[in-house]
Structure formats: structure tokens, C-alpha cells
């Protein structure tokens, strides 16, 4: 008996594979048939026959069940398409709304995925970190000295590996063409381990290769192996010649291994390299200098160690180093995931916009849910009749879900088109050359995200209307279907709640968008202290200095201490070159003025040097005073349209044989001579005698409008010809200028390295705030439009259901204007509730974007008031159509129809 029961239970379990409707119709009969089959088989073939029967039956169900489910789904799809085709207007609005929500969130996900979420192309890259040091206000970020790197490597157990890399040397192949130079990068052995660099031949670098006295070795790249050594396995053991600074003759370095193809570092802008050599103090001058901060450091966290643990250990090492090395006092180490570090200033905006896209999608889903709910309520009668006639509730729910998924499916396809446009816009607006920008694309990960979003959206907006309609078998619903029994007010509440939530969400987007746009506008209007429009900066190399017969005159230490400037022969040659170049370029068509500077504005480069203020004792902590030193020709300041606040500009008097002079900016004058006139004061740059300050310039923001001005000191190019950037102010187009300047430079034996328009650099310096403001504005506009559509739909439905009520009011003497006012008041009521709820959300959201605001505060009153008013106006505009329709109701017609 129990065996029969087990068999029956087992068969019933198999029956569950089939759709409910199929089971309901044939399940009992199938049980009976199978029981007969089983009994006959047991009688004739016994156990072996029974086993075959069960296997055959299971296989049969596994084959049949999917077909039956698919058959049912096809019916539901056909039914759903028919229903949607009957109401094309609703379908179009729903699909368009969803497509916007899905498209926006997919586009932002594509950007975030490419730049933030996708793993770096190194094994187990989630544990890779970047380490740097900071010492505000001197600097926010700086590379480390070898001393600091070695201390972290030895004393931080949270890291499995701590590694570094530097520019390195050149190599040559013995017996090869001496003009062929190979590029070698100095790296710690731990770098190749940390990055799990693949080795195809021989071995990688090991810690022993870095020890003093270790024989010089080198690991070559796959490209070099194939190119120069033909991929020969005999390459291991061969030697390369390595030049080492301070040594006359190159040394032999033995090739110990070949790396796999595709390995490149740093990521995503790898340095060109043919080989990797161990970084040792013996062969690297900077590694022996505790003040040479030239090492970027990366690490791999030990399994189970978090960033907090690593940071705590770094803090301890920093304090230990400060006790042993006074120059490290006040410096702190910082650590961050390498992927986050690479994303840099785009990390917070991308995460914020992921949240914003989520809100947009929420509004879109709420809109569609409202539309579906309203439509489902209108079809209540239809579903009541169907359920009464025997259709299962589950079938009704499934059909409505299928309709929802159909809408979401079409919206997802359109949404991908929207996402494609969004991704293109993002790439166009993002800063040029930003790390990992090339990885932003619509690929399989983004497609999966879009499918996931569409699926979740379909579930979110379909479930409530579907469940609601599945309860439609009540007499009340049947009565409503028959046209009797009066209307229920219970439909108004869920629709109203959803609209209020939409308006609240739209307010969050509006507040954030408004603040970010105002911040960007303010940023563009910041006084840079100079005018980049029409200025082109050319970086150049001067021709090799040729010493005159007899070797020429070199500067001695005594020369550098003289009260007047003395130049070496090399410096004089450079000066001669720049003066001749200036003369030739000034004669080119369209050129207004020509000057020289060492680092152009907005280039991102600065020349920090220690300075000494005459009459002021050195800082007690032993840390030198620092300033950004710029070497500028006499005409540079007027070319850049900088403003002189006191004294004079450099002129032709400030050259060799004249006393040393300098110009400082206001920030430097305020810092070192507060309340005094800086003109006439003395300041030394490095170890040179003091220069007399002859001018004070209004603070230029050389790092862009979003960063505060640096402490700056200018020295005359004619006294220190360090300036390798030619600055040209043009009148009108700059089209032919680069070719002309390049030609003139080559004619003098030099070469142009780069040419950049300063105005373009200005826009690049604010590319991230611009991108953020643009996206925020788009999100805000789309959000308020979608919310307004939601308000319009709900009010339209609401007034349609209240036709009788409107008719009675008008019949009893109400004016049409009063009826219109009734509807508008209802709309404004929704708007005010949405504002109140949204204000709470917006207050939380602005904390997230606080770091993205430059010139406004999160509580900026003007922005909050303006966007709130905008939202109410949008609500009123959305309500006008339904309100006017309500006011035009003919009381006689409406009462007769009811």
C-alpha cells in the first residue's frame, strides 16, 4: 500500500512539471493511466520493466513539459499583443516612459561598468591598491621616496606585496646598432608578483635580484623577444648592455626570463617598455636620496585584510618614519583600491548618477504601474466575468504579467537605442584621455544589465495590477461590469500615493540637478586671472648644446652666488635659440605676441621648489617652504592678460649681468608679507641668492577654476632660460599656426613636442563638472516630465471616473471655472505632498553630491525655491488638460450616460 502511495506521490511530483491548467484538465486521468501502465508492467516485466517505465516517463515529462509551457506562453503572448494593439496610445506612452528609464540606467551602468566596476586585467585585481602620500596644504598627492617604499614593504603585514616602478634606463644589444635603444623600466621584483605577470620562458625577477652585489639581470617583454630574438628559446642567458648613471661604461645584464604577451603596466596608460630590470639603490641615484619622491607605489592586500587595516598600519609607519627622518614630518600615507584610484574624480559622480538613474527608473516604473492599474481597474468587469466562467486566477495574473513583460521587452529594445545615444554623449563630454574611457561600451555585461532591469521593472509595475485583477471575481466587480452598483473610491488612494512618490523623486533630481548646474555655471564664471582664449602653447626641445672650442665656460658655485646673474655658455645658447625662435614665430600670419614659460597654464604641471624668505627664519619643523616656480619671458604676462597689482612686469633689463628679480602672486604676498608691500622684499629660489620682488600679479588659477591658486613666484626667462613652452597669442583662427611654428623650430634645429590651445585645456579642466552638470540637468528634466505625465494620467483617469459628480455640480449651479479649480486644487495638493516628501529625500541626496559642488552650498535657497516652483508649475500644466475637460462636461449628457 505504501509502495503504491509512493509511486502515486512520485508521479504527482512529476505532474507538477506541467502547467497548472494542463494538470487541472488531465492530471487525474493521467494518474489513472499511469497506474494501469505500472500495474501491467509490474505483472509482466517486473522490476526491470518498472525501472524502464519510470525512466521513459521521466524522459517523456522532461520533453513534454517545456512544450506545454511554451504553448501556454504563446497563447498569453498572442492575447497580450491583441490587448495592447487595442489600446495603442496607452502602450506607446508606457513603452516610451520605460524606454527612457531603462535607457538612462543602462547608459550610466555602461559608463560605471567600464570605468569602475569591471575588474582590472590582472588576476584577482580586487586586492590591488594604490598607495601615495599627502601633506596638506603643501600637496594633496605625491609619490614616495625609496626609503618610504622600503619601510612600507617591511612593516605592513596587511599587504601580501608592496611594489613600485620608475622610469629606468636604456639598454642596448651587444654588437647591435648603437643607435637602437631599448627602454627598460626599473621595478621592484614584487611588482611582477603583485600583478601576476605571466612568464613564458625562464623566470621572473625575485627579491634576491635587488640585493646589494646581486648580478645585474633583466626580464624582457614578449614583443622584444619576438622582434629582436626571433622567439628563440636560447635567449635566456644572453646579455644586454645597461647604461647606469654615474658610470662611464654600460654594464652587462643577463636575460633571465621572458614575460607573456599582453602584459603592460601602469594601467590603463602603460609606459612603453622593452624590458624590466630590478630597482636597486646601487644602480639608481634617486633611490639613494631620501628626498627624491619619484616612486608610485602599488600593493596587493593579503586575503582577508581590508583597507582599514592597511590604512592603520600605514599610519603607524608614517609616524615611525617622521621620528627617524624630519623631512617626513607631517606626511601621511593613503591607500585606495587601484580600480577606484584609476577612476579618480569620476568615481563619486558615476556612483551618484547610478543612484540618479535608479530614481529615474523608479519614476518610469511608477508611471507605468499607474497606467496599468488604471487600465486594470477599467477591465475589472472583464476579468470578473472570465473568472466566473472558469478561468483560473493564476491564469489572469499570468496574462497580465505577460502583458507587462511585453511592454518591458519592447521598452528594453528601445531603451538600448536610448542607451547607445547616452553612451555617445558621455564619451563626447568626458575628459579626453581619461583612464578606462575606452572600456565604456554596450557589451554583454551591459545587455545583461538591461535585461535584468527590464525584468525587475516588469515585475515591479505588473504585480500590483495583476494581483488586484485576480481578486475581481467578486459580486461587486460583476456588478460594476454590468454597470450597476456605483463606483468605489478605493482606486484613488493607490494612484495618488504613486503620483506623490513620483513627484517626490522628481524633486530630488531637480534639487541635485539645479545645484550642479548652478555650480558649473559659477565655475565657468570664476576669474582665472588670465585669458586663455586665442592662446596656443607649444612645448619644444631646443637643439643640443654644442660646446664652443676649448669646452666653453661652465658655471661655478661662486658664479651662482654673485649678486648679478651669470649664465653658462649652454644657457646662453638656449637663450639665443629662444630669442631667434620668438622673432621668427612673431612674423607668422595671425600671431599677435610670443612669449616663453616653463609650464603653461592649465597644463597640469608645476615646478615646485624650496624657497627662503629674506629676513625670515627657517620653519621650526625643518620642512622647507615651497612655491611653484615659473620662468617667464617679459611679454608672457601681457600675452596671458594677467593683471598687475603692484610694481612692474619683467622687461629686457632683467637679463644676464643685472640683479636677480622676481614677481610673486597675491597668494604668496599675503602668506609671507601680510599687510605689507611685497615690492622690494627678497626671496631665494633653491640655494641661489635672493631675488628682489619687483611685481605682484593677481592670482592666476593655473590648475583650473575649481582649484585654489598656488603660491607662485616668477623668475625672468632671460635670467634663467628654463622655459621650454612657447606661448602664442593669435588673432582669429589658429589653423596654420602649428605647422608654421613647427617649421620655424625645425629650421633652428629644435622640435615641437606638443601643441595645445589653452581654451581647449580650460574646458578639459572642467570637463568633469561639465559632464556632471549636463547629466544632472538631463536627469532632472526627464524626471519632472515623467512625473508630470504621471500626474496627467492620474487626473485624466480620475476626472473620467468622476464625470457624474462633475455633472451634478454643474447641474446644481457650479460654474465651469469652479470645476476646473477643483481639479487644479487636487493637482496642487498632490504637488505639495510630493514637495514635502521630496524635500526629505533631497536633503539626504545633496549630502552625497556635496563634494561635486564648487561655487554653491547644498542649502542654496535660490535653487531650492526655484526648483520647487518649477515642480508646481509642471504639475499645474499637466493638470490643465483634465481640468478643462472636466469644466466642459455637459451635465445633461453625463447624467444620462451614468
Amino acid at each position, binding site marked *: 500500500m505504501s509502495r503504491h502511495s509512493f509511486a502515486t506521490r512520485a508521479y504527482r511530483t512529476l505532474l507538477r512539471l506541467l502547467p497548472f491548467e494542463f494538470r487541472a484538465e488531465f492530471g487525474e486521468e*493521467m494518474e489513472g*493511466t499511469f497506474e494501469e501502465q505500472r500495474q501491467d508492467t509490474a505483472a509482466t516485466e517486473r522490476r526491470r520493466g518498472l525501472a524502464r517505465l519510470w525512466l521513459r516517463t521521466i524522459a*517523456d515529462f522532461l520533453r513534454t513539459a517545456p512544450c506545454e509551457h511554451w504553448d501556454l506562453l504563446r497563447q498569453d503572448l498572442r492575447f497580450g499583443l491583441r490587448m495592447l494593439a487595442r489600446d495603442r496610445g496607452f502602450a506607446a506612452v508606457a513603452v516610451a516612459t520605460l524606454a527612457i528609464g531603462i535607457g538612462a540606467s543602462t547608459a550610466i551602468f555602461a559608463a560605471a561598468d567600464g570605468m569602475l566596476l569591471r575588474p582590472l586585467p590582472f588576476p584577482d585585481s580586487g586586492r590591488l591598491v594604490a598607495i601615495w602620500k599627502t601633506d596638506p596644504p603643501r600637496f594633496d598627492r605625491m609619490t614616495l621616496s625609496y626609503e618610504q617604499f622600503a619601510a612600507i614593504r617591511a612593516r605592513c603585514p596587511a599587504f601580501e606585496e608592496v611594489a613600485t616602478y620608475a622610469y629606468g634606463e636604456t639598454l642596448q644589444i651587444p654588437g647591435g646598432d648603437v643607435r637602437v635603444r631599448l627602454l627598460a623600466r626599473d621595478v621592484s621584483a614584487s611588482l611582477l608578483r603583485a600583478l601576476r605577470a605571466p612568464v613564458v620562458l625562464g623566470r621572473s625577477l625575485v627579491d634576491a635580484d635587488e640585493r646589494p652585489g646581486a648580478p645585474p639581470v633583466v626580464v624582457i617583454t614578449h614583443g622584444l623577444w619576438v622582434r629582436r630574438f626571433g622567439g628563440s628559446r636560447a635567449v635566456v642567458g644572453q646579455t644586454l648592455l645597461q647604461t647606469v648613471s654615474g658610470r662611464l661604461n654600460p654594464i652587462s645584464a643577463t636575460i633571465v626570463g621572458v614575460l607573456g604577451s599582453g602584459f603592460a603596466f601602469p594601467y590603463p596608460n602603460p609606459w612603453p617598455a622593452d624590458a624590466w630590470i630590478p630597482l636597486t639603490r646601487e644602480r639608481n641615484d634617486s633611490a639613494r636620496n631620501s628626498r627624491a619622491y619619484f616612486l608610485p607605489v602599488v600593493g596587493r592586500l593579503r586575503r582577508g585584510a581590508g583597507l582599514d587595516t592597511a590604512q592603520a598600519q600605514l599610519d603607524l609607519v608614517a609616524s615611525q618614519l617622521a621620528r627617524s627622518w624630519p623631512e617626513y614630518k607631517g606626511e601621511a600615507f593613503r591607500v585606495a583600491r587601484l580600480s577606484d584610484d584609476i577612476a579618480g574624480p569620476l568615481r563619486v559622480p558615476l556612483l551618484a548618477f547610478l543612484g540618479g538613474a535608479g530614481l529615474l527608473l523608479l519614476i518610469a516604473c511608477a508611471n507605468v504601474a499607474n497606467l496599468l492599474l488604471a487600465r486594470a481597474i477599467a477591465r475589472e468587469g472583464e476579468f470578473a466575468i472570465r473568472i466566473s466562467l472558469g478561468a483560473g486566477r493564476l491564469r489572469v495574473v499570468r496574462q497580465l504579467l505577460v502583458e507587462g513583460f511585453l511592454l518591458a521587452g519592447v521598452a528594453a529594445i528601445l531603451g538600448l537605442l536610448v542607451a547607445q545615444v547616452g553612451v555617445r554623449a558621455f564619451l563626447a563630454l568626458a575628459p579626453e584621455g581619461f583612464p578606462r574611457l575606452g572600456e565604456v561600451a554596450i557589451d554583454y555585461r551591459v545587455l545583461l544589465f538591461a535585461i535584468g532591469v527590464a525584468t525587475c521593472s516588469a515585475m515591479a509595475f505588473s504585480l500590483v495590477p495583476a494581483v488586484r485583477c485576480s481578486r475581481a471575481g467578486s459580486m461587486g466587480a460583476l456588478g460594476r461590469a454590468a454597470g450597476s452598483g456605483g463606483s468605489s473610491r478605493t482606486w484613488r488612494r493607490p494612484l495618488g500615493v504613486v503620483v506623490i512618490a513620483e513627484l517626490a523623486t522628481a524633486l530630488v533630481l531637480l534639487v541635485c540637478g539645479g545645484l550642479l548646474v548652478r555650480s558649473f555655471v559659477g565655475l565657468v564664471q570664476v576669474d582665472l586671472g588670465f585669458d586663455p582664449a586665442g592662446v596656443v602653447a607649444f612645448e619644444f626641445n631646443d637643439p643640443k648644446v654644442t660646446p664652443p672650442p676649448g669646452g666653453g665656460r661652465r658655471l661655478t658655485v661662486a658664479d651662482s652666488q654673485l649678486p648679478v646673474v651669470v649664465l653658462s655658455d649652454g644657457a646662453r645658447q638656449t637663450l639665443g635659440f629662444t630669442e631667434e625662435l620668438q622673432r621668427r614665430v612673431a612674423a607668422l600670419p595671425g600671431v599677435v605676441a610670443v612669449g616663453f614659460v616653463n609650464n603653461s597654464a592649465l597644463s597640469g604641471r608645476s615646478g615646485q621648489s624650496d624657497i627662503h624668505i629674506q629676513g625670515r627664519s627657517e620653519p621650526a619643523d625643518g620642512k622647507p617652504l615651497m612655491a611653484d616656480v615659473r620662468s617667464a619671458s617679459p611679454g608672457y604676462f601681457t600675452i596671458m592678460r594677467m593683471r598687475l597689482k603692484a610694481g612692474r612686469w619683467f622687461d629686457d633689463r632683467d637679463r644676464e649681468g643685472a640683479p636677480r628679480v622676481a614677481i610673486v602672486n597675491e597668494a604668496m604676498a599675503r602668506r609671507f608679507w601680510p599687510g605689507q608691500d611685497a615690492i622690494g622684499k627678497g626671496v631665494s629660489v633653491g640655494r641661489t641668492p635672493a631675488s628682489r620682488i619687483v611685481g605682484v600679479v593677481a592670482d592666476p588659477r593655473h590648475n583650473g577654476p575649481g582649484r585654489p591658486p598656488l603660491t607662485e613666484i616668477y623668475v625672468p626667462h632671460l635670467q634663467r632660460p628654463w622655459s621650454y613652452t612657447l606661448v602664442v597669442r593669435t588673432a582669429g583662427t589658429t589653423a596654420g599656426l602649428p605647422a608654421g611654428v613647427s617649421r620655424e623650430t625645425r629650421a633652428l634645429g629644435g622640435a615641437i613636442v606638443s601643441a595645445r590651445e589653452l581654451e581647449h585645456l580650460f574646458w578639459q579642466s572642467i570637463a568633469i563638472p561639465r559632464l556632471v552638470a549636463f547629466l544632472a540637468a538631463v536627469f532632472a528634466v526627464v524626471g519632472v516630465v515623467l512625473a508630470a505625465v504621471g500626474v496627467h494620467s492620474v487626473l485624466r483617469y480620475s476626472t473620467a471616473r468622476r464625470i457624474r459628480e462633475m455633472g451634478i455640480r454643474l447641474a446644481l449651479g457650479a460654474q465651469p471655472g469652479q470645476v476646473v479649480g477643483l481639479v487644479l486644487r487636487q493637482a496642487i495638493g498632490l504637488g505639495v505632498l510630493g514637495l514635502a516628501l521630496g524635500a526629505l529625500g533631497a536633503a539626504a541626496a545633496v549630502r552625497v553630491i556635496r563634494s561635486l559642488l564648487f561655487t554653491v552650498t547644498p542649502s542654496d535657497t535660490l535653487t531650492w525655491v526655484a526648483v520647487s516652483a518649477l515642480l508646481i508649475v509642471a504639475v499645474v500644466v499637466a493638470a490643465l488638460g483634465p481640468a478643462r475637460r472636466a469644466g466642459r462636461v455637459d451635465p445633461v449628457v453625463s447624467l444620462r450616460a451614468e
Partner: protein
Amino acid sequence: MSDDSRSFLPLTPALFHVLVSLADSDRHGYAIIKDIAARTDGAVELGTGTLYGIIKRLLADALVVETRAPVRNDDPRRRYYRLTPLGRAVAQAEADRLERTLDAARATTLFRKARTT
């Protein structure tokens, strides 16, 4: 042969077997399974899933109808099925189609070669 019956062609082998099984008398599910197995010497053994999927389609297309049990005290779970005139016409149309296909095959060297060896 009407256009109506031809519109159902070609039939799957399993579906054709079920129609043939119902040609001579009304049967219930297990009887159909046994009849097909007997006719094909055990080569075709329909599972209950396949059988009732076929019956569902045949009922929806009006090729078969459910009918009363021939005996009074039969298992209440049994349901009997009868071929409709349309169902009979469809079965005949399929049989004709298969016959024409076989005739075409017999006219080729396939069968002539077999006879000569």
C-alpha cells in the same frame, strides 16, 4: 478530401498513431497506449505526457471528442475519446500522403536494387 483536413497535414507520427487507434472504436488513454504498442510490436510506446499533450490538441482542433464510458462501473478517472468526422478525414488524408510518399520511394532504384539481390 477537403481543404480543411489537408490543412492539418503533415501529422507527427505519434499523433497519427493516436488517430488510427481511435479509428475502429472509442478508447481511453491507456487503451490507446496499449493499442499503439501492439500495432507497432512495441516500437512505439507513448508516455502519458506525450499522449495527453496530443489529446489536448486533438480536442482543441475538434478531431476527437470526449464520450461516455461504455460500461457503468468503470474507473471514474477514465475518459473515453471518439474520432470525429473531421478527425477521420484528417487521418485518411495523412494515410494517403504517406502512401504517395512510399509509392514515390518504391519507384526509385532503392527498392529495385533490393529485389535483384
